[in-house]
């Protein structure tokens, strides 16, 4: 199952997500965030995506992983917020 969602952040940038789940929609198999937002170090996006892989479909679980990721002070984001990442992920999976 492949799901997509996107959001134009007011006053910010566009953020999209493509998320694949197993057939029973119980866990994330693959996830990719794309868009014209800024985040550095850029390669860290893979850390976020990898830590979401295998996660059961549960908003609290997503929230915990995303919050945890952005709490790392080396990560700087511009044009979107951690809440936007969570919101589009939830939107994509509730479609």
């Amino acid at each position: 199952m492949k799901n997509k969602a996107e959001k134009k952040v007011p006053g910010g940038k566009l953020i999209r997500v493509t998320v694949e789940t197993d057939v029973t929609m119980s866990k994330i198999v693959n996830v990719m965030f794309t868009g014209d937002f800024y985040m550095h170090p850029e390669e860290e996006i893979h850390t976020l995506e990898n830590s979401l892989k295998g996660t059961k479909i549960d908003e609290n679980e997503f929230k915990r992983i995303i919050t945890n990721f952005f709490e790392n002070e080396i990560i700087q984001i511009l044009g979107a917020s951690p809440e936007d990442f969570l919101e589009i992920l939830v939107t994509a999976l509730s479609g």
Partner: protein
Amino acid sequence: MNNVDVWRVLDLETNDCATNMAIDEAILFHISEGKVPNTIRTYRWNPSAVSIGYFQSVYEEVNIEACQSKSVDVVRRITGGGAVYHDYEGEITYSVLVRDNDPKIPKDIIKSYQLICQGIIYALADIGIDATFKPINDIIAGTKKISGNAQTRRKPGKDIVMLQHGTILRDLDIKKMFSVLRVSKEKISDKLIEQVEQRVTSIRRELGDKLVDFETLKNSLERGFSKTLSIQLERSTLTESERKLATEFKEKKYGAKDWVFKR
């Protein structure tokens, strides 16, 4: 004048897109290792090319068939941000590379964009265009965008380095730009072109159909950056080691399909 900082400035160069992006990263690495001074460069793109932001999907942003048929190259940047069409005649690009702990560089990212962008605003004033900074990272003439900019900070060696690169529109061919970029799902209609003409402008349009040559633009940009950063520029070239690393980045990264098509 002993305490004026001296930075290196490289001459305006024209390269293919993979080389242009590889040079930025090679310089970044060498500054991080403390091997070369803070650096400013200006460059053009031949063949014309589309660059996409680090996080963008090439499939979502670029009309790959149109690029192939028009001999327009595609490259992924190490910076975030949006897709840009870099026309050989239509724009000039710059990069500013500086140690992140330099006291001149604000820790606040938007303030640091503003500081570097002020150099472009001075350059535009120099050629007769009144422009202002529009956060996060645009420069506008009136209400229309004339320059887009992107930044990263990374630490491949000893020190964190800030890279800001960006583009100043010299002349604008919206139809060509739209033919190589995927513009949502809408067709490229006259109405859409009209809308973009109200949002984006170029030096040529702002000066009432007058073209400014690249040498003049380069000189104005160099003066603008010296002024905003209170630095002195010393003309130099890439070191042998930077050239070598740039060749490596070009072959293994920017010119490689798995990098360009990774998202």
